[in-house]
């Protein structure tokens, strides 16, 4: 297995084999990020595919200043946000509830408990869930998230604040119940 930096250099120069190796290496990471970001298996699969196609188109513009995984997450997050804006699927509460139940079922089927924490995270809207995941699960800074999602730093800050507040509230309510 070649070192990632070498693969990136080759891929940027147009080596299709190197690019396909990079995409394969990051496939699980990308899919798992998107599954958490969308909490919807079909949407996560769709956006994984679309992100890879976009990466193939844009690889020549990749400057290597960020990690390849960060670049993919950025493309993927922007696709999720664009789709959300276009389709406004997020507003269809019943549909969201349905997809949450479906991912809950799939998770339990794999032998993992559907915890209160996952339920609370699933109930956040994607526009809040994405910055929360990027900051607290993936460890990106607020400024990085702002650049990745193309939104002002103040918006990231308020979404993080509201997201954690909502998570804390839901988890406290579950504990009390």
């Amino acid at each position, binding site marked *: 297995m070649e070192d990632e930096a070498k693969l990136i250099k080759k891929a940027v120069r147009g080596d299709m084999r190197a690019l396909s190796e990079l995409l394969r290496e990051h*496939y699980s990471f990308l899919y798992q990020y998107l599954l958490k970001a969308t909490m919807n298996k079909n949407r996560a699969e769709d956006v994984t595919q679309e992100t890879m196609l976009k990466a193939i188109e844009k690889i020549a513009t990749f400057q290597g200043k960020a990690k390849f995984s960060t670049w993919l997450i950025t493309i993927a997050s922007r696709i999720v946000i664009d789709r959300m804006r276009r389709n406004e699927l997020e507003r269809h509460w019943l549909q969201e509830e349905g997809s949450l139940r479906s991912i809950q079922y799939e998770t339990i089927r794999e032998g993992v408990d559907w915890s209160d924490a996952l339920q609370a995270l699933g109930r956040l809207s994607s526009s809040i869930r994405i910055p929360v995941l990027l900051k607290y699960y993936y460890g990106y800074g607020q400024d990085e998230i702002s650049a990745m999602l193309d939104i002002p730093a103040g918006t990231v800050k308020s979404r993080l604040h509201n997201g954690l507040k909502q998570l804390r509230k839901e988890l406290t309510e579950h504990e009390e119940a």
Partner: protein
Amino acid sequence: MKKHDEEDQLWFNNLMKEDLTRFDAAHAPEVPEQHRFEELVYAHVQDTKRKLWRELLLFWLLACFIFGVMLWIIDRNWIWFAIIQAVTTAGGIGYASYALARGRHREWKS
């Protein structure tokens, strides 16, 4: 402020992180074989090239048409030609500055 951030991170690590890690493990996808990725990359590169050639052809056809119309207008009326040129130049400059400002705003170091 920094302390507040650290507290939030600690809260997340204690209550959420482990569950999310287990969630990730439960949903680890089956990664397709390398040749499937190679096929995808090759097919998409070919598609993109075809699309670019089509767009380039369309661009040249349109350019030839506009050039022809302009020559026809010069031949008919110089004043109208000057007016059209002034309007399109102003429109072009306006659009270019808008696109440039938007591009600068969206700039992200990959």
